[in-house]
């Protein structure tokens, strides 16, 4: 994608564009602070341009355009079935395994078209890790859960340190350091989910996609996952799908509100509003956002 220009500002349809302008300075400043070498322009890791997704004849997502900035946490919120997860899974091509999946529009990752013919899915996921709704540790030891992917990716040097770093990064080290050889299936749900996060960061991806990572956990485990996200921020770009609005408000720098839109006949998910989190929760522009965050629908 040579034609891509970082200074170019695509202005998507209102109302999100108005909000975008309003929120612009904040992420820019933050990105400059945390990265230093990036001077003024906030760097977009993902730039989705008019993305629509189909499963067979059913349109699941319509015309989503949004930019996800480096080193920050972006939350995708909205009612069930509004395409949040579909959008998230389009960001590392996890949907490719769905037989009838089809995507329109463009997803640029650091300016490269992710769905170009020469793009390899394995390479995509090497850089864009994902953590799922239900903890899914491998039926292996705690150590092997973390070490498996680095081993297979040729990162065999200093494997023990890598495992320790990943577990420390996921705030799990102190709880499991004495039983690394035990089965991961013996951990509690919250520990399993942190193990999955540790497994994802062990290969040092650029981006972490989290698909409702705390929805299967109790409030205490949820709190530890949220704390973890704060500590991972900056090192990784994080995109999180969540049902829980408070969670989005607590962890995210930017929030995208998705909803079902029946305007074009068959209802399909679409992006309603995207802005910094404070704006979405305190001064939403779109009435649908206002209704949703105030609990009047959804």
């Amino acid at each position, binding site marked *: 994608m040579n034609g891509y220009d970082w200074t170019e500002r695509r202005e998507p349809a209102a109302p999100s564009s108005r909000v975008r302008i309003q929120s612009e300075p904040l992420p820019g400043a933050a990105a400059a602070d945390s990265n230093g070498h990036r001077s003024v322009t906030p760097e977009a890791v993902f730039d989705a341009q008019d993305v629509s997704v189909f499963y067979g004849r059913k349109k699941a997502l319509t015309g989503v355009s949004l930019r996800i900035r480096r080193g920050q946490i972006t939350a995708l919120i909205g009612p069930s079935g509004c395409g949040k997860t579909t959008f998230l899974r389009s960001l590392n091509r996890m949907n490719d395994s769905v037989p009838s999946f089809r995507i329109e529009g463009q997803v640029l990752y650091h300016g490269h078209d992710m769905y170009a013919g020469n793009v390899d899915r394995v390479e995509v*996921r090497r850089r864009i*890790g*994902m953590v*799922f709704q239900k903890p899914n540790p*491998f*039926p292996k030891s705690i150590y092997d859960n973390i070490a498996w992917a680095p081993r297979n990716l040729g990162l065999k040097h200093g494997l023990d340190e890598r495992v320790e770093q990943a577990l420390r990064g996921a705030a799990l080290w102190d709880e499991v350091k004495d039983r690394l050889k035990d089965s991961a299936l013996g951990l509690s749900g919250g520990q399993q989910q942190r193990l999955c996060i540790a497994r*994802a960061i062990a290969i040092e991806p650029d981006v972490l996609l989290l698909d409702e990572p705390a929805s299967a956990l109790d409030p205490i485990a949820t709190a530890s996952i949220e704390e973890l996200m704060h500590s991972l921020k900056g090192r990784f770009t994080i995109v999180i799908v969540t049902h829980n609005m408070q969670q989005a408000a607590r962890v995210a720098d930017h929030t995208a509100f998705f909803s079902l839109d029946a305007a074009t006949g068959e209802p399909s998910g679409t992006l309603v509003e995207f802005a910094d989190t404070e704006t979405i929760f305190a001064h939403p522009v779109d009435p649908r956002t206002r209704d949703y965050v105030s609990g009047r629908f959804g």
Partner: protein
Amino acid sequence: MSSGAIPDPSAPLTPSGNLRRRQIFSKATEYGATTAAILAIVVLGIVVYTVVARGAKALNLDFVFTAAPTGIGPELLGTGVIVLVATAIAMPLGVLIALFLTEYAGNRAAGPIRHTLDLMNGLPSIIIGLFIFGLLVDHKQQSGLAAAVALAIIELPLIARGSQEILLLVPNSMREAADALGVARWRSVLGVILPSALGGIVTSTVLAVARAAGETAPLIFASSVFDASRFSINPLEALPNVPVTIYTLSEEGNPEGFTQAWGLSLLLVSLILLASLGARALLARSKRKMAS
């Protein structure tokens, strides 16, 4: 009361009309099904009892470990070699077929292959024997290897289908987890999916072995003219084996041979039973492991 009408709510709550007939039918079905289930167990029980009762007489160490005329050691060894070679051929192929069906093929390709395997499973073994006779024995000579190829054809669909069922039990979340780590698919298959399914794959292989060990028809074509007086493990010559020997001994009309045939049958049944039970225990364990 006409059918379909709501019954008088004040009538006693005992069965009336149509319901009484349905209850009789229901009872009859229940008893029929129970009887059929008991019958299956009874038939197995009679067979096992007869084999044990008549075969136990023949069993002693000499019988198991020496060659003809006193023992059937070479036959046990020969069947072991033939089944081993057959499994060495059928297991890798079967597992690869199962992997193709579950990990690589789409629905359109998997369906016909699955049906083909089921058809193959129903193929009469005498036809497989004839096929192998034409292919590997006619104009050449009988050999343990020819017998093994025939048994491999019998084992293949059992192993492939059994392994496929087990691979389908591996939760999709494991595949997603592995995919999301940016590891190539074949490494995920080797490192995560196959190990999770290993117990079940071994089980279906053992069950296939148990089935193949007793197959007689292909062996009559491929390995029936042998020298039972010496031990051999050379698969390039006809190997003494259990099923054919059971057949020839019981055809001899010599009471001692008949007893030996029963003894050999008892050994075969015990081995197969042991293998099946072990396999089932293994399968239960691996299913438990996957569920947790």
